[in-house]
C-alpha cells in the first residue's frame, strides 16, 4: 500500500529517536477486525502516536454505482457494511425514495423497522463476540454466534441469502415474507433477553473483562463531536443524540424506546450501552410484531417497483413494466438528497445526486466507522499497547464500509 514512502507522515519525534519504536499492527492481525493497519509509535509499552492506514479493501463502489441503474445499486450497498446489510439497503432506498417523492405503504415501513432492528442485533452480536474474544473470553464468541445463526436463518428464509440480503428495495420490499416469518421472529425475541442476561453474566461481573475495559480508551463528549464519532460510541461519551428518536425516518416515530447514555466515555461505557441497545431493539421488534399493519409491501408505482412474479406472468402491462425497468431503469428527477439513518455503528448517510437520467450521477456513502477511526489516536495516546486491542474492539468498526 505504502511502499517507498515513510510510514508516519512526520518522522519519529526528535530527541526521543533512540527510545521510540514503530510497531505495525495489521493488516493481517487477528484482532484488527478486517484489513486495518495501525502504525503505532511506542515508547516502551506506551503509545505515543497512532496512525490508521486504510484502503486495503477499496473496490471503488462509489464509482461503480455511477454506471448502474438505481435498482442495481442495492446489492452493492450490501457489500459496504457486510454485518448489517439491511441498514445499508434501508438508507439507500430511503434516499432514492426521497429523490422520487415516493410514498411507502405502512406495512413495508413497519417491516423495515423490524428488519433494521434485527440487523442491529445481528451486528451487535458479532461486535460482542469478537470484542470479548479479543479480551480473552472465548466462550461468549460461541454463544453470540449461536444466536446470530438464528437471525441469519430468518434472513435466509426472507430473502434467500444469509448475509447479502438485498431485501429492502426502492419502493418497498423485495417480496412478501414467508408464512413462518413472524412466528420465527417472535420465537427468537421471546428467548433472546435471557441470552443477553447470559452474556452479561459471563462478562459484566468478570474481573478480567472489567479491568481491561474500565477507564480505557476515554473519549470526551467534545472530542466525540469534533472528530465525527457517532452512534453508541458517541452516546457512551455522553452526547444524547439518536437519529431514530431525534430525526425519525421510516416510521420510527411510532415506536417507544429509550436511548441509553453513559458519560464515562470509556470502553466499559460503550459495552454497557450496546447491551442496553440490544434489549431496546428486542422491545422495538416486539412492538413491530404487535402493531404490524395489513396491506401491500410495495408502493403503487409500476414504473419504478418491479412487479410480482405472478402478475408478470399473467398481465401484459406488468410484463412490459418489468422489461422496461430491467433493461432501461427508470428516470429519477434531477436533484440531490442526503439521507441519514442510525445504523448499528452510528450515523450512516447516503448522498445521491441525480441528473435526471436512469443512473445516479454521484453516490457517496458517509459511513460511521470511517469517522470513528479518526478518534482512535485520541483514545489511545499515553495508554499501553495492550489497550489498542481493547479499544479497537470496543469502537466496533467494519472495514468494508471504511474502504468501500
Amino acid at each position: 500500500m505504502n511502499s517507498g514512502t515513510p510510514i508516519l507522515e512526520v518522522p519519529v519525534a526528535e530527541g526521543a529517536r533512540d527510545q521510540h519504536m514503530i510497531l505495525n499492527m495489521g493488516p493481517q492481525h487477528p484482532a484488527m477486525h478486517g484489513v486495518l493497519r495501525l502504525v503505532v509509535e511506542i515508547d516502551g509499552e506506551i503509545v505515543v502516536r497512532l496512525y490508521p492506514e486504510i484502503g486495503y479493501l477499496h473496490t471503488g463502489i462509489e464509482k461503480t454505482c455511477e454506471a448502474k441503474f438505481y435498482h442495481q445499486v442495492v446489492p452493492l450497498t450490501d457489500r459496504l457494511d457486510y454485518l448489517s446489510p439491511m441498514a445499508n439497503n434501508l438508507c439507500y432506498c430511503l434516499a432514492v425514495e426521497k429523490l422520487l417523492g415516493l410514498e411507502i405503504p405502512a406495512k413495508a415501513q413497519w417491516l423495515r423497522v423490524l428488519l433494521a432492528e434485527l440487523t442491529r442485533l445481528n451486528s451487535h452480536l458479532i461486535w460482542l463476540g469478537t470484542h470479548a474474544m479479543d479480551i480473552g473470553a472465548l466462550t461468549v464468541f460461541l454463544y453470540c454466534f449461536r444466536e446470530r445463526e438464528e437471525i441469519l436463518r430468518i434472513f435466509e428464509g426472507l430473502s434467500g441469502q444469509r448475509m447479502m440480503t438485498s431485501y429492502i428495495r426502492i419502493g418497498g420490499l423485495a417480496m412478501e415474507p414467508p408464512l413462518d416469518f413472524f412466528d420465527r421472529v417472535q420465537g427468537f425475541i421471546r428467548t433472546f433477553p435471557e441470552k443477553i442476561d447470559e452474556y452479561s453474566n459471563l462478562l459484566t461481573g468478570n474481573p478480567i473483562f472489567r479491568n481491561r475495559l474500565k477507564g480505557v480508551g476515554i473519549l470526551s463528549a467534545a472530542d466525540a463531536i469534533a472528530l465525527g464519532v457517532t452512534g453508541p460510541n458517541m452516546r457512551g461519551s455522553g452526547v444524547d443524540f439518536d437519529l431514530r428518536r431525534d430525526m425519525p425516518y421510516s416510521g420510527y416515530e411510532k415506536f417507544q424506546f429509550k436511548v441509553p447514555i453513559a458519560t464515562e466515555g470509556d470502553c466499559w461505557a460503550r459495552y454497557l450501552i450496546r447491551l442496553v441497545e440490544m434489549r431496546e431493539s428486542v422491545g422495538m421488534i416486539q412492538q413491530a410484531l404487535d402493531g404490524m399493519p395489513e396491506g401491500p409491501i410495495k408502493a403503487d408505482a409500476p414504473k419504478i417497483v418491479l412487479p410480482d412474479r405472478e402478475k408478470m406472468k399473467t398481465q401484459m402491462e406488468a410484463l412490459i413494466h418489468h422489461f422496461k425497468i430491467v433493461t432501461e431503469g427508470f428516470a429519477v428527477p434531477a436533484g440531490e438528497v442526503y439521507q441519514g439513518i442510525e445504523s448499528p455503528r452510528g450515523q450512516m448517510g447516503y448522498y445521491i445526486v441525480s441528473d435526471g437520467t436512469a443512473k445516479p450521477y454521484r453516490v457517496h456513502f458517509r459511513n460511521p466507522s470511517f469517522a470513528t477511526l479518526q478518534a482512535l489516536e485520541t483514545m489511545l495516546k499515553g495508554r499501553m499497547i495492550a489497550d489498542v486491542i481493547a479499544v479497537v474492539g470496543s469502537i466496533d468498526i467494519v472495514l468494508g464500509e471504511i474502504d468501500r
Partner: protein
Amino acid sequence: MTDPMMAETKTLIGKAAVLEGLHEHPAIKAILAWDPAALTDAKFDRDELTLTIAADKIRAAAASVQAAGYNFFEDVTAVDWFPSSPRFQLSYHILSHIYKERIRLRVMVDGDTPAIESITSVWPAANFYEREVFDLFGIRFEGHPNLRRILMPDEWQGHPLRKDYPVEGYR
C-alpha cells in the same frame, strides 16, 4: 423546540426566494450577519436546505454556522460536473443536535488547479473526508495537516471519481 423549517414542505429555488421564505432560519441568519456577500445562492428542496458559499470563504462560513448551533460535521464530498464550468461541487453536510436538522453548504471550485481552504481547523472530523476528496477527485485542501492519499495507493496516477476517468480503469 421551535421548528426552523416552519413546518410546511415546499421548494424554494434561488437566493431571493429562500431568504424570503426562510428568513428565520438560524443558519441563514448567522451567515447573513457574518457576511451577506458570501452567500451566493440558496435552495430549499426535498426538505433540505442548500446554501452556496463563495469558494474563498468556506472556512469562515463553516465557523459561523458552527457558532449558530450547527455543531456536528457529518460529511464532505465532491461532485464532478465535467465538462461544465466551474467543474467541481463540494457538498458539506452539517448537522445540528439542537435544531435536529442538517444543512448543506455547497461550494463550486474551478477545474484547472482545484483547491479550497480546509475546514479541519473548525472540525477536525473533516480530516479523513478531505483526504478522501483529495485522493479521489484531486482537489487540494489548503491548510490540511496531512493531505495524502487515503484509499488509493500513494503512487497511484489519476483521480478515480473524476468523470473523465473510465469506470473500468485504464488498462
